[in-house]
């Protein structure tokens, strides 16, 4: 083949909404069931975010109504989805763009929120429009006085809202936003995930009142269990470790500061005079140098130095809004009703300059939790329901925890709840389904998980120790009379010796010992004692171990491997 004449190549530009319209799978709208689920979720999250930013106790209602039968196509059906909240509302001037423009929103900040990409709501509206050609209706009251209601379409090619109707009416003083859209969906297939989503959301937002009204009119209410709310997250300055060349250039461009030292304290998270000075000396810059005087090469050098300097303080948590023990406890107790619950909230940490906090809870027993370990994952209070096996938390719990250490029975009924909050959650996809295994995140998850497992282990050991007391009494009561009998007969005596005093003494003594031990459980001693009790439950293996152990205690010359290494014959 000889190269033929060039074919005509044409170039074109597309808008962001066009891009996501064409590639909607990327945002979680890959099929009618997933699209319905994603729409519900994105809009509910917008509502919760709005309430929490405004420190309002959230009240959110999600209503899914079936459209007319005629609108059916295969397993799909038109659904009318209405999400209403009591949030702060949106100013009328922002209303069209906030919902009708991709890459426009309130979430492009270094601040914790459920939304990350600022386009979930718009994508839901876009998807509704391209499947049903119906306008979305948005109502919002921002000032408590006037409710603005818009009927709106999106001009996808231009990435801009097209307003069909704009009405106003008086409010009764309440603020809030309501979005009503009509989309093709597959509720039958999506129902389970939607229910899971609400159920799990209720675990981490026990301070919210959430109602779900399904197409049959059935109402499921997730009622407020506490009025305690996490503090609203605030915006933060970037941490030095998170700065790249582009970011530094932008900061310099905006900066009015006269010296690099001042520039640093003014623009970087947790950098004071002392740290700035130390850093500049480390990086080889004059502290009095003007930021704008840095050359292109200087900027790169500066950034590299930022990443290598080891004395920056870790980011603080002020910009983060973890749930905290109280709220998480309330959520777990309310939704899972376990016999035992424990929490571990890790101190703030950071990856690539983004602060994050890991919180892990464990729930054990009760009637709701099935046997085996169940994992509930959350990131910035969003339940993550898909692709569990790809998630870093799954990896940690399955591969990196030595469960044997904690002596928790394999089939114990356990739910582990992980919550990662960050100004930037390291999702692997726009669909927000699982977290990347960043080493820092992995480490924190591991530490927190170990912590809660220790707590559960202690609980189980104490629980066992109570039963231990009773059993011990039984054991002495059982064997001492037998010993007396066999000794008497073997010795050819007539009268039994008086062994009852021994019985009484021994039991008191043992009780004291057990009490001490259980106070610092779980320990090998405790478990070895337990094990010897277990003989009575016919578990010979354990029994033999403990037997050998005890012999060694008293005859230190003995070696514990005795049985295994003995000659085969």
């Amino acid at each position, binding site marked *: 083949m000889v190269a033929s004449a060039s074919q005509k190549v044409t170039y074109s530009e597309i808008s962001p909404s066009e891009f996501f319209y064409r590639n909607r799978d990327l945002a979680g709208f890959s099929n009618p069931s997933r699209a319905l689920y994603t729409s519900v979720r994105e809009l509910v999250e917008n509502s919760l975010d709005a309430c929490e930013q405004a420190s309002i106790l959230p009240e959110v209602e999600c209503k899914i109504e079936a459209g007319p039968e005629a609108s059916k196509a295969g397993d799909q059906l038109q659904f009318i989805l209405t999400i209403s909240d009591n949030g702060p509302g949106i100013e009328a001037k922002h209303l069209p763009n906030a919902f009708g423009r991709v890459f426009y929103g309130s979430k492009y900040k270094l601040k914790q929120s459920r939304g990350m990409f600022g386009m979930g709501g718009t994508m839901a509206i876009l998807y509704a429009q391209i499947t049903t050609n119906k306008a979305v209706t948005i109502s919002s009251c921002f000032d408590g006085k006037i409710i603005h209601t818009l009927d709106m379409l999106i001009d996808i090619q231009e990435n801009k809202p097209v307003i069909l109707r704009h009405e106003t009416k008086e409010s009764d003083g309440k603020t809030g936003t309501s979005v009503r859209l009509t989309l093709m969906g597959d509720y039958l297939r999506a129902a389970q995930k939607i229910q899971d989503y609400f159920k799990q959301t209720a675990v981490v937002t026990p301070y919210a009142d959430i109602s779900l009204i399904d197409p049959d009119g059935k109402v499921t209410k997730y009622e407020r269990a506490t009025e305690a709310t996490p503090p609203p997250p605030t915006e933060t300055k970037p941490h030095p470790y998170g700065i790249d060349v582009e970011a530094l250039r932008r900061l310099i461009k905006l900066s009015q500061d006269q010296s690099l030292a001042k520039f640093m304290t003014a623009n970087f998270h947790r950098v004071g005079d002392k740290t700035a000075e130390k850093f500049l000396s480390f990086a080889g810059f004059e502290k009095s140098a003007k930021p704008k005087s840095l050359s292109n090469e200087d900027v790169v050098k500066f950034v590299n130095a930022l990443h290598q300097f080891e004395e920056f303080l870790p980011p603080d948590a002020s910009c983060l809004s973890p749930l905290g023990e109280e709220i998480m406890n309330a959520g777990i107790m309310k939704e899972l009703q376990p016999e035992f619950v424990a929490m571990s909230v890790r101190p703030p940490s950071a990856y690539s300059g983004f602060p994050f906090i890991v919180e892990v809870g464990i729930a054990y027993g009760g009637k709701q939790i099935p046997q085996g370990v169940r994992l509930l994952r959350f990131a910035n209070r969003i339940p993550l329901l898909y692709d569990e096996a790809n998630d870093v938390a799954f990896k940690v719990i399955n591969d990196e925890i030595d469960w044997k250490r904690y002596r928790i029975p394999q089939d114990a009924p356990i739910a582990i709840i992980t919550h990662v909050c960050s100004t930037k959650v390291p999702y692997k996809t726009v669909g927000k389904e699982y977290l990347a295994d960043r080493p820092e995140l992995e480490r924190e998850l591991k530490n927190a998980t170990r912590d809660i497992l220790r707590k559960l282990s202690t609980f189980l050991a104490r629980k066992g120790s109570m039963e231990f007391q009773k059993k011990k009494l039984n054991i002495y009561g059982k064997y001492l009379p037998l010993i007396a009998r066999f000794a*008497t007969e*073997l010795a050819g005596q007539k009268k039994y010796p008086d062994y009852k005093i021994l019985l009484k003494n021994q039991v008191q003594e043992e009780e004291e010992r057990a009490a001490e031990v259980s106070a610092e459980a779980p320990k090998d001693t405790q478990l070895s004692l337990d094990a010897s009790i277990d003989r009575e439950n016919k578990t010979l293996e354990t029994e033999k171990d403990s037997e050998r152990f005890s012999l060694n205690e008293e005859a230190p010359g*003995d070696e514990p491997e005795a049985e295994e290494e003995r000659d085969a014959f």
Partner: protein
Amino acid sequence: MKKRLGTNQKRRRKEMPSKPSKKDAKRIATERRAELLAQLKSLGEKAYNDLNLGQFPQFAFPSRSVSNIVYDSKLKQYVLGKTNVKRSSGNIKHIRPFTQLLWLAFFADKLVHDGKTSTLRDVYYSSQAYNMEFVDQAESDEIITDLEAVLSRAREQLKIYPEERSAIFGDLTIEYTVPGYEGNRLNLSSHPDGYLIGPSLSTAEFVDTSAEMIIAVEKGGIFTRFVEEKVHKKYKAILIDTAGQAPRSTRYMLRRLNKELNLPVYIMSDGDVYGEHIAMVIISGSANAAHLRDLTVPTAKWVGVWASDLVKYKLPTDPMTEADIKRAQELKKDPRYTGGVWQRELDIFLKIKRKSELEAFSKYGLTFIVDNYLKDKMQEAKSL
């Protein structure tokens, strides 16, 4: 019932080193029994006194952990070292096995008193009559071994037998000591399928023999072949089928035949490391029975099947498994295996990595093993 002596009295009879009279046999048995009963009783008395003093009774006995099993190169067997373990009823972890051990002493005492035998399995179930129980037979077997260690006596002396079925054949007249058969005599060449070595044979006294040696083989099939090919006549031999690893009662029997009748013992086992070890355990005892004596035949000779025979006789072989090889390597480090043939043959096993068995000689016809192999080996044995 009365039995006549065997009829082949024209042959040269082996002189009994000390021909025991019927009376002697009875007296010895009675003495042994009294001694044992006294020992058991003292266990009970000690516990009884402790209880009366408000003390928790306890047993002390030699530890059977590996670190306390040492090789006695004089005795040429494993023995227990000096470490003792204590089992106290005052320890919540010990009280159960302590009670079991005391019960077993009590039960053995009854058996000896009543002149009954029982099996390991019987012991496991018998405990229930006394509100004692064992999780499984492994647990009661373990306690039986503990009592052996406490008393330094084999369980067979306590009338507890395992269910094992080795057999004997050859010109040996014995006299029973078991109840109902006291004084009865039997010649062990009268039944060509062989006699089971059970409680009554184990406790019988030897009266008379024309045999000049003992040949122990590992397998019933070869035992039958040897009888059929009249090895007992050709070699003036008493034949013993160890049925695999020789049971203790059979090892005890071999020792008595060797010591009391002054007969040399030759062992022929399968051509693999387990076969070699079967021979070794007859000669030097096992680590498991380090707490006991009188179960070894230090002068016995292992005559085959050697690893070198696999090569020499071009026997059909199988490859050694990983486990076989591991076992061979372990045995190489075993102090019983020092010297001559033992190390040499292990080395060859490890080199050729093949194994075989006694029946493999059938490749050359059924009689080859007797007409050729055994002949070669008995010749060779003279130089061992």
